[in-house]
């Protein structure tokens, strides 16, 4: 996946609810159209990040498996 992130969030080793809490915190500080890359290895985050995006209306751009963790890409909506 060829997406360039503006902000990278390291949530490797974190469990629910911290990846989502940090996602929300980071998005608050970002501008519209900017992209956040979340690196996480918690299985719960897999469903949670998508659910968060659907609920808040911020587009989920995709995911990429990198070694033993995932990268999730989320764009900040308008």
């Amino acid at each position, binding site marked *: 996946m060829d997406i360039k992130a503006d902000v990278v969030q390291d949530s490797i080793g974190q469990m629910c609810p911290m990846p*989502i809490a940090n996602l929300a915190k980071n998005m608050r500080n970002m501008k519209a159209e900017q992209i956040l890359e979340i690196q996480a290895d918690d299985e719960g985050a897999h469903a949670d990040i998508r659910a968060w995006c659907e609920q808040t209306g911020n587009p989920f751009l995709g995911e990429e498996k990198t070694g033993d963790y995932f990268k999730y890409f989320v764009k900040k909506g308008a």
Partner: protein
Amino acid sequence: MAEKKTASIVLFSGEFDKVFAAFTIAIGAASAGYETSLFVTFWGYKAIQKGNLTGTGFLGRMIGLMNRGGLDRLATTRFNFGGIGPLLFKKMMKDKGVALLPELRQTAIDLGVHFLACKTTMDTLEIKREDLIDEVEDIVGVATLIKASQNSDLTHFI
């Protein structure tokens, strides 16, 4: 701009695992953009107390003595084993990278969760405002809770 969705959570319980659930749900709601309020009442007070001894009268002081320690000294609902249980749970949580209660409370505060405390509990248990963490925004009664939950998109009682 559309009005913000709101969430009202009542924290009645003071056990480790139930406070954990309340903080987690509050964080989830605040993260999803809900204006989130945590109404703390009765045993839930342990979650917002500094942990010092409380009470003015004899019975109040006895309760204060039994109930001291705040967030770091919560018993678990099951497997408490006279206080050993929470230590074991904390170790298991740490080993797995699960955030502990102080970090969760701070995260909820950072995300703007409103901490509201019940006045009757304070009077009954003889707890003063200065016994509570500074982040408690207001001391309220049931009418505030009912008004808030009537307008809430999400309500929980824990």
